[in-house]
């Protein structure tokens, strides 16, 4: 896939990936074997008819391809960009056995971008059922659930606590990976299905739990927005951020454009990021674009990094330095961060995740200079709302327990996405939300 050169892209927040041209897309589409029993569909959490839309690209009918995708997925331009296709549809593509799989994600993205420019009719809506459904949160799960429910003719209201819809798509994922005009355009299409969006509404605060439970059904899609901190000495020094805060300041509040935008953020010249997931890569690459020399510290080896391979590669190209088998243990500074002490880690026997357990090697310490230190070690479910719902069963990590159909311990409350699983992927949240919406539709029939 063509990308912009690294030395150009670290100077702005424009998209890194350039996407296919029509010729490239058609050539790629023609590689598809059109399997009789397509495995790729099994790998798609929302069940897009992948061979069908690829055939439509090959035939040159891009809008028809877009309509095919839209039957199962209202957020294709987003998914085409941020889905880990290499672990899903593309992983199962039969071509991958001998050469490279069809680049399904890039094709989805091409189709969605084409349709956005050319104009694709929004899907039809069933007759109004007069049933009211509340959706809490407007991230991937909330938007997908809302779209499914609205298409089925229900009266859907989304409650969003921030001033802008999109959840992690808006506050979390940077625009160089997911341009905000694309997010906004896809949100607009969901709203065009007749969904009511109430921003600045915090359920449990602006909307009481009693009011919430008066809806015929409730879908919780509040995500995993609670940042974990490492609990280090010096963690409260100025210049220490959770990745959530750092990314929210930039993505949602546009702090990189201060003082044109009012929200400040410290522009680090030496930035340390702890963690190696997609959020860590996003934070590191954002700090890089703000002029910092960025070092990412990870306790395991590079091959154990949970981020997508492409993100790791992009980060490396952009000059992010990786220090592996090391872990921060103390933050130095009087008022502002001046450095981070790290300890070397040794790799031991594999743990439940199959990756080696990392253990500190005593006395093997080193110090990295830093004026900004960003912790990207994971997020948990947002506790604010769910701890106020009486009778809802929670798991150990404060996640809502929901079955495969999205049912929780309360008969008319359903849940999907990171609030049930802890931080996972956009598409898994969407897949779960779709199932939950279908379960809600079944329930509302009676």
């Amino acid at each position, binding site marked *: 896939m063509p990308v912009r050169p690294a030395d150009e892209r670290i100077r702005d927040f424009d998209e890194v990936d350039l996407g296919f041209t029509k010729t490239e897309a058609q050539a790629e589409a023609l590689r598809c074997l059109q399997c009789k029993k397509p495995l790729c569909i099994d790998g798609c959490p929302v069940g897009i008819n992948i061979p069908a839309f690829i055939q439509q690209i090959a035939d040159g009918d891009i809008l028809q391809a877009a309509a095919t995708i839209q039957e199962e997925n209202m957020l294709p331009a987003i998914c085409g960009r941020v889905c880990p296709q290499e672990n899903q549809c593309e992983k199962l593509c039969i071509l991958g056995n001998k050469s490279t799989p069809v680049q399904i994600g890039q094709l989805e993205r091409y189709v969605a971008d084409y349709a956005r420019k050319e104009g694709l009719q929004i899907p039809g809506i069933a007759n109004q059922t007069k049933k009211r459904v509340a959706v809490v949160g407007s991230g991937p799960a909330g938007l997908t659930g809302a779209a499914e429910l609205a298409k089925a003719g229900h009266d859907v209201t989304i409650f969003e*606590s921030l001033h802008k819809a999109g959840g992690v798509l808006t506050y979390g994922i940077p625009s160089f990976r997911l341009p905000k005009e694309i997010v906004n355009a896809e949100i607009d299409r969901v709203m065009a299905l007749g969904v009511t969006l109430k921003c600045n509404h915090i359920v449990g*605060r602006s909307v009481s739990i009693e009011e919430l439970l008066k809806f015929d059904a409730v879908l919780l899609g509040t995500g995993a927005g609670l940042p974990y*901190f490492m609990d280090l000495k010096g963690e409260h020094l100025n210049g220490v951020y959770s990745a959530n*805060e750092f990314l929210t300041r930039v993505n949602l509040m546009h702090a990189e454009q201060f003082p044109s*935008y009012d929200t*400040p953020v410290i522009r680090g010249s030496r930035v340390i990021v702890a963690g190696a997931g997609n959020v860590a890569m996003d934070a590191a690459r954002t700090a890089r674009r703000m002029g910092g020399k960025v070092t990412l510290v990870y306790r395991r080896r590079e091959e154990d990094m949970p981020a997508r391979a492409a993100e790791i590669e992009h980060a490396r190209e952009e000059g992010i330095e990786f220090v592996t088998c090391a872990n921060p243990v103390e933050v130095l500074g009087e008022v502002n961060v001046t450095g981070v002490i790290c300890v070397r880690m040794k790799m031991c026997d594999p743990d439940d995740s199959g990756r080696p357990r990392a253990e500190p090697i005593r006395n093997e310490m080193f110090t990295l200079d830093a004026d900004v230190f960003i912790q990207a070690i994971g997020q948990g479910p947002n506790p604010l709302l769910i701890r106020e719902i009486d009778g809802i069963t929670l798991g150990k990590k404060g996640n809502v327990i929901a079955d495969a159909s999205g049912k929780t311990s309360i008969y008319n409350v359903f849940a999907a996405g990171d609030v049930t699983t802890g931080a996972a992927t956009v598409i898994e949240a969407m897949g779960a939300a779709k199932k939950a919406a279908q379960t809600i539709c079944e329930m509302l029939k009676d």
Partner: protein
Amino acid sequence: MYTITKSKEIANNIVEIWVDAPHVAEHAQAGQFVIIRLDETGERIPLTISAVSQSTIRIIFMAVGKTTHALARKVVGETIADIAGPLGKPSEIEKYGTCVLVGGGAGIASLPFIAKSLKIAGNEVIGIIGARNSGLLILEDEMQSICDELFITTDDGSKGVHGYAADVLKNLNATKKLDAVWIIGPTIMMKVTAEVTREKGVKTFVSLNPIMVDGTGMCGSCRCRVGGETKFACVDGPEFDAHTVDFNLLMQRQRMYTDMERTSLDLFMQHTCDCKEEK
């Protein structure tokens, strides 16, 4: 968009506004706050809900930075792009017995709502409101009407007791059994005043005002040390046990963006002076 229905400078540089925000007004309780964002390029800042009337809420603030200066200049009929809330845990209102509410400067704005709630819960409520001088004193009449007894202090002696609110609290604490105390004002004032009640172990609350972004527990910008643990003021507070708060750390974190805040304000002032008519 939320419409400003009243706006008035009630003391030097301290402004009272009422804004139509039904989703907040309907649920607001004493001690809670809102996060406002003025416009598309605005920042999100927390402000205490000072009172509620039908679908409107009252916010009282001192114009110190760009956002508060810009808000102070808004006139009736103008709007605020976003108001999220009510946020934070409400004040712990119960029947304590004798309660003292201490307010300093613009922090006095938080007191009437709490005082009223405590009165309704059956408490004797004593107010102490202090300011640098009489020109900066706010809500005297309102507090007078709610409290069983009200003390006024000014640093320069231009009104009431010449001295600090802490001095009056010290006397009360020495002569009377106090069951619960609220101290709300500038961080340094809360820090100093809270020492008065430490020895006798009087239950004392302070309302913390660290830098926030989302206000819903998602970023950790407002993290404070309370009782040796990390707490998020936005969801675990904003009120905490005064005797366990690390005030020095709070003050340090409040100053994180001082230079940038100054830049922002300077640009705003420059702009509004050069082309006032346009604005």
